[in-house]
């Protein structure tokens, strides 16, 4: 079988591979090369060594600011999303009436695309701020908390569903044994529930982390970086470097390479923790 199948490579693999090369592999390799060049279109690239990378870390560039803003945003939203999602999941696994309805409602915002989400929340947040006579572009703080709010609205339902699945896997006997031993609710949470949903916590933690870290659409629609470029996160900063002014494409590409390395590091850490967990269990 293997031998016959092997001859079918052109039918089974070639179409996917062709699309993969055009959409991903070739652009990826070219992207790495171009980050060491100065170019406006791909064909007029001139090798400039590490110039682009040095440029990123000079005082006038927004990259480090965007990095710091992204890290702050990622930390805050990862914590808030997971705490809220976990609490809702706890409530929704108590066998209350209407559980199914609540689950459906809480999950729904997750299906709406980032651009649409951004404009929905722009309306709401500007509505509140208009009382103060300003809008979301007035201060980077407003943009920051606006993004946190939006992200919570979008991701809480999603994470909640994963937590619910984890909570439902815990056997009833654990809880019965605990209540016979006279454990108080907080003790049950700490010594039974939390350790047993640890796999779900790892998954949700990293999902929120990477989602927030790579966020683009929501950021673009809600603030577009305003005021100035103060609320641009990394992905938006890269976009603005590429398309904001002619001549800085090389710098944009170098930023993209650094962004890729950071995301790859996060993925590596995630893999390490997921593997470790598998060994433990």
């Amino acid at each position: 079988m293997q031998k016959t199948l092997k001859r079918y490579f052109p039918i089974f693999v070639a179409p996917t591979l062709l699309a993969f090369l055009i959409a991903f592999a070739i652009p990826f390799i070219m992207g790495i090369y171009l980050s060491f060049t100065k170019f406006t279109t791909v064909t007029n690239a001139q090798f400039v060594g590490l110039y682009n990378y040095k440029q990123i870390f000079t005082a006038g560039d927004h990259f480090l600011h965007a990095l710091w803003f992204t890290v702050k945003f990622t930390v805050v939203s990862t914590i808030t999303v997971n705490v809220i999602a976990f609490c809702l999941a706890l409530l929704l696994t108590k066998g209350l009436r209407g559980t199914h309805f609540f689950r459906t409602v809480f999950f729904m915002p997750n299906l709406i695309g980032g651009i649409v989400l951004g404009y929905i929340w722009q309306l709401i947040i500007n509505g509140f701020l208009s009382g103060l006579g300003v809008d979301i572009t007035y201060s980077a703080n407003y943009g920051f908390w606006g993004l946190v709010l939006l992200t919570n609205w979008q991701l809480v339902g999603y994470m909640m569903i994963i937590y619910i699945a984890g909570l439902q896997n815990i056997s009833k006997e654990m809880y019965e044994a605990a209540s016979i031993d006279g454990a108080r609710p907080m003790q049950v949470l700490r010594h039974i529930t939390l350790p047993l949903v640890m796999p779900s916590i790892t998954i949700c933690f990293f999902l929120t982390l990477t989602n927030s870290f790579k966020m683009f659409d929501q950021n673009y629609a809600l603030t577009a970086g305003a005021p100035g470029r103060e609320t641009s996160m990394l992905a938006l900063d890269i976009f603005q470097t590429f398309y904001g002014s002619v001549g800085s494409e090389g710098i944009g590409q170098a930023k993209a390479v650094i962004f890729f390395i950071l995301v790859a590091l996060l993925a590596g850490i995630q893999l390490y923790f997921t593997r470790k967990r598998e060994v433990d269990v």
Partner: protein
Amino acid sequence: MILKKESIKAVIATVFLSLVAIAFVLPIIIVLFNSFKGQFYISDAPFVLPTKETFVGIQNYINGIQKINFISAFGYSLFITCFSVFGILLTSSMTAWYLTRVKTRVNTALYYGFIFSMIVPFQMVMFTMSKIANLLRLENPVGIILLYIGFGAGMSVFMFSGFARSIPRALEEAAEIDGCNPLQMFFYVVFPLLKPIAITIAILNAMWIWNDYLLPYLVIGTKYRTIPVAVQYLQGGYGSRDMGALMAMLILAIIPIVVFYAFSQKSIISGVVAGAVKG
């Protein structure tokens, strides 16, 4: 007595959850009633319901649909999403099965190449990819499908492979004895068995492609606008935008998603969870 205490707790929890549910739906409700208000009555007082003088009926919807050509945006979105998902399902499942059955060094390298692409953020390839797409004349609603097949391959091949490994070889051997060639074997024996994971993969890709903004904007955005690109286009300059039309278009952008969700929420939720846990 204990029962009573429990039921009071349950009431409190239900009231609390209802409040949270209202908070979750409220933003959309606010956009909805603002979409019936005149464009100059929205930004300053978004929380005020339409009154006799601010109510403009469906005028915002008419304006918006004309300004961004919503009907064709909907058509492009639907066309691109459907055919890309179909293409991804077909090509990725075939590739995944082949790669799990024919073990050579090249194939293993390819498999890891696909997985690797999952961790690369789009910004890394967006510039070069859109230039190549331009060069190859892919800047149309058909060409972009090829790009989606390439981008979707990473996650889809990975998830199909995980599932394909669990298919018992005995089934395939039986088919071989019956004289099936690999193509017949794949479509008659293997693909039907892959169906559960295929549904998950279809949902994950459909959600991604339907809502995707950057790829269609960069590749076909000047000529063919999908819904997210059209909504963003409407925003235009910060000062000049028509808030009424924007509200109306947000609602029109949400309706297809809500309808889709209402009909298949079970498979959407389980699909998204399966994707999260495996990916």
